[in-house]
C-alpha cells in the first residue's frame, strides 16, 4: 500500500488546475480514478447497474464542481469517494433498492487455466470484503483500494481517525478468520499472477 508522495500530490494539484482551465484536461483524472470509484460503489451496492449509474453521476458532479473545487492537499480521490458514498446513501434510501449477491467482474485478458487458483482466491477475497458490515467495508476499500490515509478516510466517512483504525482492525481480523493465510507467493507466481 502506497500513500501519495508530496510530489505526486503536487502533480495532481497541477492537473486539477489544468482541468479547471480546460475541461478536456479532466480526462486523465477520470482515467486514474474511474476503476477505483466503480469498484468502491460496486462493493458497497453489490449491483452493477447501480455501480455504473453512481460512477457516472460521481464524475458528472466532479465536472460540474470543477470550477469551484479548492485544493486541500489531499488526493482528489478523497473528494470523489465522498461524493460516491453520498450518492450511494441517497440511492439506498430510495424504496425498491435490491441488494444482489456479490458478483465480480471477470479479469479481462486472463487465461482461466493459468490463473484459476489465483483468480479463485482473489474472488474469495473480494467476496469476503463485500460481505463485511457497511462501515468496515468502506474503511477497507478506502484504505486498501483508495490508498487514503486515516484522516482522509475519516473525512470521507464522517468518522474520527480512531474510529477508522478500529473499523480497519475489526475488518482485517474478520477477514483473516474467514480467509486464513494468503496463498504462498510461489503458488501465486506459478499460476502466473
Amino acid at each position, binding site marked *: 500500500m502506497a500513500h501519495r508522495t508530496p510530489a505526486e500530490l503536487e502533480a495532481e494539484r497541477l492537473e486539477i488546475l489544468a482541468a479547471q482551465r480546460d475541461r478536456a484536461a479532466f480526462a486523465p483524472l477520470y482515467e486514474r480514478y474511474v476503476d477505483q470509484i466503480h469498484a468502491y460503489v460496486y462493493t458497497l451496492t453489490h449491483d452493477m447497474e447501480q455501480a455504473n449509474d453512481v460512477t457516472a453521476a460521481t464524475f458528472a458532479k466532479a465536472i460540474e464542481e470543477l470550477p469551484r473545487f479548492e485544493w486541500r492537499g489531499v488526493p482528489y480521490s478523497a473528494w470523489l469517494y465522498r461524493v460516491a458514498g453520498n450518492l450511494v446513501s441517497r440511492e439506498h434510501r430510495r424504496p425498491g433498492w435490491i441488494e444482489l449477491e456479490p458478483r465480480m*467482474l471477470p479479469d479481462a485478458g486472463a487465461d482461466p487455466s493459468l490463473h484459476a487458483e489465483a483468480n479463485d482466491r482473489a474472488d474469495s477475497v473480494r467476496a469476503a470484503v463485500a460481505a463485511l458490515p457497511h462501515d468496515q467495508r468502506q474503511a477497507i476499500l478506502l484504505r486498501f483500494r483508495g490508498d487514503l490515509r486515516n484522516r482522509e478516510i475519516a473525512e470521507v466517512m464522517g468518522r474520527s481517525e480512531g474510529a477508522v483504525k478500529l473499523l480497519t482492525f475489526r475488518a482485517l481480523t474478520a477477514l483473516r478468520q474467514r480467509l486464513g493465510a*494468503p496463498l504462498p507467493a510461489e503458488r501465486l507466481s506459478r499460476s502466473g499472477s
Partner: protein
Amino acid sequence: MTAEDRLDEALSSDIVAFAASSEVRALVDTGDEIGDALSTWSLDAATRTRLFADALAMTSAPSINERLRAFGLDRRVQAIAGGAVVTCAAAAVSVAIAKGRRHAPTSPAALGV
C-alpha cells in the same frame, strides 16, 4: 497503545510490520492480499468510455447562454439589447431637449432685439 494502533503503525511501515508480533503481521499480510485483490478490478475500455459519456450527458443541461450560443442567437440578442439601449438613450435625449426648449428663456436674437 491499543491493538488497532499497533496494527495501524504496522500497516503504515514495513519496518514496524517486520518487527511486529505474529498476530499483527498476519493482519498486515491479509491487508496486502486485499489490496492486491481489489486492485485487479478494472473496467473494459468500452464501459469506461460509456460511463464518461454518461457523465458528460448529465452535465450537459445547458445554461441559457449556452443555448443561445448553440443556436447562434447570442449575437442577435446582443444586437437587439444594444439597439434597445440606443433607442432608450435617444428617447431620453429627445425628452431632455424638448424640456429644455420649453423652459429656456427666449434669446434676444429671436425677438429681433
